């Protein structure tokens, strides 16, 4: 029977606070920026001056946080034994391991670029609130990556999401922005409700909210692998997937995406598409692998009930729907929104690959690699969208006509990013797709045959996606320049574009530079902490998942107690 979890209230040690310092700094900096705006600058200076100072302050704060995060990675700053996953930080609610340390650098890096992008022009009067919310959403994002427990995860997710709801509606004088924010809020609330409901089911089935403990409890109580015959598990799984499906914009939880992407100010859209998606996917991988790993698939045959099959179907539908819908778009941001749905589909293929691949950490590394490079490419393309919205006043693809002749450098960078999104070698997008799809085919046993259809669908979709990306390339290089184009390019946009393009080419030419650390992060991401002395006691089942990569359930033969458990029927 479910027991009430006892979370020991041990005051975190100083070193634990130290690990959290980037997050704490950002939380504090949000307050600082807000206070600076409200108490010092507002009503005293012009809006543009205010925006400039607040932007600069925020940039400094974000860079400081980035510095702290990088500093934590520095060899010797954290003792290796501390960094290993055995320790439990904040009473086991937060993992601070190699994965968190590395991934928070990426997340804060995205934040820096988004702040840089936000400084290019003034789109809102509420400057202080804008930057403060950016910081707080980043705080939520990083805690979400680090969360090891459902409540922490949910609160972090909501911190991020609610901040982003408000950010979406912050554009002054834009009806679409407010409309988008409202839609996002309502849709998001529904999804959050479903998600929370799902978590409560999981809690009901296992009696704990800690990911690792949930995983152990499910392993102990299972009668079959996967969810065959257990409609309670199926219900819980679907509800949890609905929550994540909303966050990562996968079909059928995608409908907010085009409206929000189009309506939100471009930097916020970039933030949603890069940072939010990044964190959501990582949290999804953690929950699915650490907690709900048992529900993935039945041993041996991959068509059996479980989240592998459900996600495969969602992935296929998302890719196909996103790409087909993007084909007819004239609006650049809307096209990117649909393409983002399609990319969620590709990434879901990667998640499925983690579930079935015989090399889990490689598969995780591949997904993380794709997330990083896709995030960068998205930031770059939305930077162009931001420029269009600001400089040209509309964001149609036709507005890009002839940019290649007027502004060769940004146009070239954009072209690189689009080619990477298509997946043209040797750019980063190609390696990301290749590695993920390879791992999806790398399933142990006879799974290779079963998942081939998914990879085939993904590859066909890559072909379809080329059509609408190439339309943009055509506009860049084969059309005559329109009158409005190429007046000025704010430096924030150029910087973002150049950084994204350089990273895309660099990590494409030398993928190992990013893959190796991310693969290492994959190990600790898939490692659950030691069973806590105070949580649900571990029985003598002999299952120790600590400090090793969990075996593929499809290959592990764990003696299952025949006794019916609480969760079966």
């Amino acid at each position: 029977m479910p027991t009430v979890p006892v979370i020991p209230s041990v005051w975190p040690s100083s070193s634990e606070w130290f690990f959290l310092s980037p997050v704490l700094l950002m939380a504090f900096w949000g307050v600082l920026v807000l206070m600076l705006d409200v108490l010092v600058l507002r009503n005293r200076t012009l809006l543009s001056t205010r925006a400039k100072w607040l932007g600069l302050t925020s940039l400094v704060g974000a860079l400081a946080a980035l510095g702290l995060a990088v500093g934590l990675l520095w060899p010797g700053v954290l003792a290796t034994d501390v960094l290993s996953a055995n320790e439990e930080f904040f009473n086991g609610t937060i993992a601070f391991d190699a994965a968190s340390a590395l991934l928070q650098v990426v997340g804060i890096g995205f934040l820096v670029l988004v702040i840089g992008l936000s400084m290019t022009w003034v789109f809102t009067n509420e400057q202080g609130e804008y930057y403060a919310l950016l910081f707080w959403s980043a705080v939520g994002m990083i805690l979400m990556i680090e969360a090891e427990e459902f409540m922490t995860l949910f609160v972090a997710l909501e911190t991020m999401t609610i901040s982003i709801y408000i950010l979406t509606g912050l554009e002054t004088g834009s009806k679409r922005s407010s409309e988008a924010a409202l839609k996002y809020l309502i849709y998001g609330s529904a999804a959050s409700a479903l998600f929370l409901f799902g978590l409560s089911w999981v809690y009901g089935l296992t009696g704990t909210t800690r990911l690792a403990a949930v995983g152990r409890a499910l392993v102990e109580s299972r009668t079959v692998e996967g969810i065959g015959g257990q409609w309670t598990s199926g219900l819980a799984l679907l509800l949890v997937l609905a929550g994540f499906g909303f966050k990562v914009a996968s079909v059928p939880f995608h409908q907010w995406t085009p409206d929000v992407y189009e309506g939100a100010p471009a930097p916020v859209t970039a933030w949603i598409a890069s940072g939010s998606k990044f964190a959501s996917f990582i949290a999804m991988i953690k929950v699915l692998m650490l907690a709900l790993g048992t529900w993935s698939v039945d041993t041996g045959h991959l068509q059996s009930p479980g989240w592998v099959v459900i996600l495969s179907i969602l992935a296929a539908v998302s890719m196909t729907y996103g790409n087909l819908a993007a084909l007819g778009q004239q609006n650049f941001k809307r096209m990117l929104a649909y393409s983002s749905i399609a990319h969620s589909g590709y990434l879901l293929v990667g998640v499925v690959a983690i579930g079935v691949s015989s090399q889990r950490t490689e598969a995780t590394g591949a997904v993380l690699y794709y997330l990083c490079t896709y995030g960068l490419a998205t930031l770059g393309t939305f930077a162009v969208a931001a420029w269009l919205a600001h400089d040209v006043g509309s964001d149609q693809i036709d507005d890009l006509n002839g940019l290649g002749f007027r502004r060769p450098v940004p146009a070239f960078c954009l072209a690189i990013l689009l080619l990477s999104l298509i997946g043209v070698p040797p750019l980063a997008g190609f390696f990301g797709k290749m590695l993920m799809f390879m791992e999806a085919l790398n399933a142990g046993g006879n799974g290779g045959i079963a998942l081939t259809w998914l990879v085939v669908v993904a590859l066909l979709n890559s072909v379809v996606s080329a059509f609408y990306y190439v339309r943009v390339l055509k506009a860049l290089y084969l059309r005559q320049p329109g009158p409005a184009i190429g007046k000025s390019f704010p430096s924030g946009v150029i910087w973002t574009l150049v950084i994204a393009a350089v990273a895309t080419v660099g990590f494409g030419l030398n993928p190992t530079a990013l893959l190796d650390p991310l693969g290492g992060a994959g190990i600790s991401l898939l490692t659950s902490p030691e069973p806590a002395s105070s949580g649900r006691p571990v029985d003598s089942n002999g299952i120790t998942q600590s400090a090793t990569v969990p075996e593929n359930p499809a290959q592990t033969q764990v003696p299952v107690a025949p006794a019916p458990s609480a969760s079966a029927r």
Partner: protein
Amino acid sequence: MTSHWQVWLYVAAVFIPLVAFATGVLFRRWLRSWIAWIATGAIFCSFLLSLIGFLGFIPHLKSSHGESSQSDHAQVAIPFAWTADFEWLDIGSRLLPGLESEPVKGSLPALRIPVSIRIDALTVVLFVMVSLIATLIHFYSIAYMAEDPRYSWFFTYLSLFCFSMLALLASDSLFLVFMTWELVGICSYLLIGFWYEEKTNVQAANKAFIVNRIGDFGFLIGLGVLWTSFGTFSISEINRELADPGLRDAHLRLTRPTATHGDPGGLVRLSSRDQVVEGAGPGTTIPLFVSYSALVVAGLGIFAGCMGKSAQFPLHVWLPDAMAGPTPVSALIHAATMVAAGVYLVGRFFPLFTHEVLLFIAYIGAISLVIGATVAVVQTDYKRLLAFSTVSQLGFMMLGLGVGGWSAGLFHLVTHAFFKSLLFLGAGNVFHAVHTFEMASLGGLRTRMPVTARMMLVATLASAGIPFFSGFYSKDAVLASVLQFAEFHPGHTILVVLPLLGSFLTAFYIFRMWFLIFDGEPRSEQIAVHAHEAPRVMTLPITILAIFALVVGYPWTILPLATPVVEAWIEAAEPLAAMRVSAGVRWTAIGFSVLISLAGTVAATLFYSRFKLFSTRSILSDLKPLRTFLFNGWFLDRLYRLVFVLPVLGVARGVGRFDHHGLDRLVNETARTTRGISKLGDAFDRYVVDGLARGIGWTLYGLGWLGRLIQTGQIRTYVTLLSVAMLGLFVAVYFWIR
């Protein structure tokens, strides 16, 4: 292998010109003529870095062989070097930390291409030499090329060349060597054809490229053989594995290695790499062997590449034509640096060459040296004369290396680079003043261009091998090696006769050139009147070069009593105790050398200076057939044309004709028939295939449109759809898992 930080100096020195090149390509329009200064500054930076590196290397510049050369079976010390390895390509060996112990089933061995840098004494010296000469020539070109419409392109190409040349020197990986080898080839091609408006220049560029390609064909074969037999691209690793004193001795004795060093089946044992036996206890190894014939083939292949690049007989024909390029280019690429790359590579690969190959190298060198010298004697175009002289001098270096005088040959490379680039730049000054390359209409420029004349005289003396000028010391070292070799192997005495003849001719033709240009009375008033000394920007570099052409060969004592300083430095990198020259032989060589060069000088004086005793006209008319023979470079060009080019062209024309009359008609008839059929196909295409394709396209668009239909923008639709989707999923999953 440990990495030394000093390597980064050299990496920077290599890449700075590349940055200048990239700047030139990207910002040519904005920077315009500033590119010249950027390029010059870049190579100057490289020079400073090389100088710093050189100063840092001084403590290691001690020859490691001097004392121990007699104890031939002692383990030979590997010459000191700064090294670093970089991973350029690594496919498949990526293992995550913690997983190394678990080999993945069915995985292939990794394909790794490491890029290693190795800086030893030879590299250090050559880096300083190349970057110094390149800096001076850049500086010189600023004035020389000033009026050229493609001024900035010129410097951009030069920067690319500097990058590739320096990278070639620094790299220890054959792969990288091949890449940079081709890069310098491309730069040479671009710069020979720099004035591509004239057809002859383009032809010269093509010729250079194609002839080099023939050599590179062999080079590639050598590369492939090395890769298959050694499994590595690292030059130093290959050398280390062949670093068996016994093997080297066998080579020097012109015999095959004895059974102790290789078994009778024609295998050579790799000395430093034994295969670890899988599964056996630690330390259980079996020796690895490489086939002797593979070594011969690899050596010949590599040397073929060197023959092409260093303009050795029979692939030397491109070099005289390469003089079509701007004169600074001739000085930098076709005299001092690129053409020496072949010699450099022979030096780098020295341990690889078996005695057959070494002998082949020596003979090729000797032949080239005689051909070059004889042809140079009768040239009337002073730039062509210098080109043939370069062929001859490169032959000298190859000969030195071939007979085992490793440091002698490479020492001659260094001295030659200085005096020959000086000669070319001087020639550039002369051309700048008189706008002709024909010596017949010159003369008496001594008084009008005093600085150039004096500096050229220094180079001439050095080139002729007059004592106390750098050329003397290096030529003497090569001669000594040759003499020693002939003492060991009397059967190869011809290898002594040919260089002596060559030395004589060298002194003769080089003084002939100087006298004809600068001495006596002007033969054409019209030209002499307009002649003027070059601007300071152009005289300063040659003055500096003259200083080096004078002193670079000096031993500490200046008198030829000890080993020259630069030669001693180079010796520190000697791969294995090469041949030692005994004192007696050395003095004999000095005697020969002095006599021969003085004789050549005197002969030239008697024929061409204002003190002349003989008229050349009568002699020339008597020897007209010989002169024609020599003037046309032994008719080798025509021979090649007859034997290779014309047959190829003939075959090409034949094929063309066959294509035209045979195949084309066939094709035309077929086409006519096909056209009829294709009309049908067209209809099919238009209505069925296109229809299908369009159908697919429209279907996709239609599907997309349908998909977007549900995107109403109404939040209540969305939430409804969300509920429907969830419900649908629940129902589906429920029935599925039931």
